[in-house]
Structure formats: structure tokens, C-alpha cells
């Protein structure tokens, strides 16, 4: 699914990622944990093609294709999705208009006709119910005036609707109360399948109690310093990141 080899990346003159190796197979859920400033969000940004980040060395293959050569929208069409740590507000654009444009752009790229309006609205309704979003949110401007929990739920709704092959959840658990966290976790768990993979980026274990990862990686100062299974989560909870 995803092969990251010796990835180095920087912002301006500052090197943030200093040689990351990470291989993710189909159906696997990987947790990337690390203290603040380790490079977790930079990794998510580089994977999705956020402007401002420069890859200086290494490669990323996504389903056999050179991910770094693709524009952000092409990555989305190929099945990559990022749940933003800080979802962006888009004044003047409704969730319906936003998602319709997203769905139809992908269909166009695949040579398919636009989705019929009725079919699209039915799909929206279904996915909103899935994350327990009230129907009236369909007409709201994207993230404008949303609470923290509503924003994160909107991210998971978009994930469910776009049905990605690889989902990256960047600190999706931060700022969520237990109820919102459960809804998000249920959403993520329901999307698990033998073909689909996920990377959960987090600096603590809250979400990982509900979404159990197959593999855990510790990221520190731009490098992966430890690979393991779920047992690492407890070790980190008890002893923090200083031991690595």
C-alpha cells in the first residue's frame, strides 16, 4: 500500500524529517506516536502534498506509484485521505457543495459521469447518519462556527464519504470529549477492511484504546526510533517518550 523510504523533508532551512522508513500493507492500521515537535504533522503534510514542505531525499510509493510526483488532488483521487489536525473553515461554501465537488472531481478523473443529484444526497445522508451529524449540517458552511468536536466529526464524515484506501488521522483525538472520541473511533473502525489501511498520528494513547493498531512506531526528532506492536502503547503511557 505505502512504502516510505529514507524520507528527508524540510521547511525552509529547517530539516524536520531525517530519514523515515515506513511500510504499510493492505488492511493494516499503524500508529505513529511521538512527542510534540517530533515531525508527526510534517509527515502527514508531506504525504498529502501540502505546499511549503520540501522533500530533499528518499521516496514514497503509494500503490506502486510515485506519490511525490502527484498533486494533492491526484493523491486524493488515488485514495489518500488526511483528517486534518486543524480542519479549515471555508466561508461561503456549504458541506454539500464541497463534497459534491470532491466526489465528482474524482469521478471525472476516473472517466465516470457526474453522480446524479438524488444519489449524491442519499449518500450524504447515509454518511452523516453514520457519524451522527445532524442533517442540517449539510447546508452549513464548511467548518464555520463548528465546535472542535463537530469539526473532527466532519473530517470522519468526509472520510466515510470519500472512501479512501489509506486514511491518515492527524491528532484526530485532540480536543475531543469521550463521547465525540467514541463516535470518531466507531467511524474509523467501521471503515477497516482487508484492503484499507490507516495511519493514526497521535502524541497520546486516547484514540488507540478504541482503534487498535496492528503496528506502533515511535517518531522522535525526525526519525523512527522504535517499531513494535500494541505493547508499546502501554510502555509509552507508563514511561513517556524520554526512554527512546
Amino acid at each position, binding site marked *: 500500500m505505502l512504502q516510505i523510504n529514507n524520507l528527508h523533508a524540510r521547511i525552509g532551512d529547517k530539516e524536520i524529517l531525517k530519514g523515515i522508513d515506513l511500510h504499510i500493507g493492505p488492511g493494516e492500521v499503524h500508529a505513529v506516536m511521538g512527542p510534540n515537535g517530533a515531525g508527526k504533522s510534517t509527515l502527514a503534510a508531506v504525504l*498529502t*502534498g501540502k505546499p511549503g514542505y520540501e522533500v530533499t531525499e528518499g521516496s514514497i510509493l503509494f500503490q506502486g506509484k510515485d506519490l511525490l510526483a502527484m498533486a*494533492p*488532488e491526484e493523491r*486524493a*483521487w488515488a485514495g489518500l485521505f488526511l483528517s486534518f489536525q486543524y480542519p479549515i473553515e*471555508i466561508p461561503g461554501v456549504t458541506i454539500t*457543495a464541497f463534497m459534491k*465537488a470532491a466526489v465528482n472531481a474524482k469521478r471525472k478523473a476516473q472517466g465516470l459521469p457526474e453522480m446524479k443529484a438524488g444519489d449524491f444526497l442519499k449518500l450524504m445522508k447515509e454518511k452523516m447518519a453514520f457519524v451522527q451529524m445532524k442533517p442540517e449540517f449539510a447546508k452549513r458552511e464548511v467548518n464555520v462556527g463548528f465546535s472542535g468536536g463537530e469539526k473532527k466529526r466532519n473530517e470522519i464524515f468526509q472520510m466515510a464519504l470519500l472512501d479512501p484506501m489509506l486514511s491518515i488521522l492527524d491528532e484526530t483525538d485532540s480536543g475531543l470529549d469521550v463521547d465525540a472520541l467514541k463516535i470518531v473511533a466507531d467511524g474509523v473502525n467501521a471503515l477497516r477492511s482487508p484492503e484499507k489501511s490507516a495511519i493514526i498520528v497521535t502524541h497520546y494513547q486516547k484514540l488507540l484504546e478504541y482503534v487498535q493498531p496492528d503496528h506502533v512506531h515511535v517518531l522522535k526528532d525526525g526519525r523512527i526510533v522504535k517499531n513494535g506492536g500494541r505493547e508499546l502503547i502501554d510502555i509509552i503511557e507508563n514511561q513517556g517518550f524520554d526512554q527512546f
Partner: protein
Amino acid sequence: MGHGKYVIPSIASVSPIVVQAGEVLNLEFVVLPGESKDITVFVELAGPGAEAHLKGLYLCNGDEQVHFRILMHHRAPGCHSTQLFNGIAGGRAQVHFDGTIVVAPDAQQTQAYQENHNIVLTDTAKVETKPQLEIYADDVKCSHGATVGQLNENELFYMRSRGIPEKEAKTLQMLSFLSPVIPEGREEEILLSLHHVLE
């Protein structure tokens, strides 16, 4: 404010559109790419309770020049005026917006609002906006605001990360920026012009 001599600016050489007591004037302006425009509007709210509502949309690129000169003259008490002008400049286009509200000494209980918002798409496009208030009465509610900005990069990346191509993402942003000033029934035409400005 409230000081100095009550004079009407020089724009007054154009003959005014006079709105009498209780009348309502609605004006909409649309300037699309392909031509330069020089638009001068002088509105006089001449009788108590008169209203004037102006909306303007402009889209320009290439070497086009768009110049608005607006004078809203509140002569009578209890009148209400609003102005909203939103525009986008690409290429090497130049936009000038001069908007003045004058409230006469007798025009108490005036309400007058003016806003002008701009997006520049290129380094070479230029926008100059000069909103002015001249108030000679003391019981008034007036405000004006002007902004010049660019398309929001974070919004663009968010949309692209969901699979919306860059050009379409920009179009969506521009459409939402212009939506308060798009006259009814002209959405399609504006949309086509937006594609033109992005090329």
C-alpha cells in the same frame, strides 16, 4: 467629523439620481472581463426616509482598468443607504474605488454603510480603494470598510486534499466571495467569467 465646512465633492458635476421621500432606489453594477469601465454614480437622498441600495461586482484581468466613483449624499433626515462592492483583479488589471458618503447637517438619523472588498490574483494586478465619510450631522449611524486580499492558501489546500482540482477550488472560493453581489439569474455567466479570469 462634524467639523469643517459642508461641501459636496467635485463628483457633483455629474447630475444626481434623486431619491424622494419614502422612495427606494436599488442599483446593481456588473463589470465582466473584456472591457475597461469608468463608472460614476451620484445619489441624492432628498426626502425623509428615502433609501438607496447599491451593489457592485467586478472581475477584471489583462490590462483592463475599472474605476468606480460613488457619491452618496444624505440630504434629508432618516434616510438609509447601503453599498457593497466586491471585485477580483487578475493579470495587470487596475481597480480604483472612490466611495464617498456625505451626510448633510440636517440629515439626522441617517444610516449609511459602505463596503468594498477585493481579491488580487497576481502580483501585477493593482487595487486602490478610498472610502470616505463626511459627516456634518451628529445623530447618525455610519460605517465603511475596505479590504484587499488574496485567495486563502489553507482553504485551497484543504479543498485539493479532498480531490477538488486547484482551478475549481479557486473558482469555488471566488464564487463564495462574490456571492453577496451576484445579481439573481446571472450565476452561470459569472461562473464562466471566473474561468476566464483564471486562465
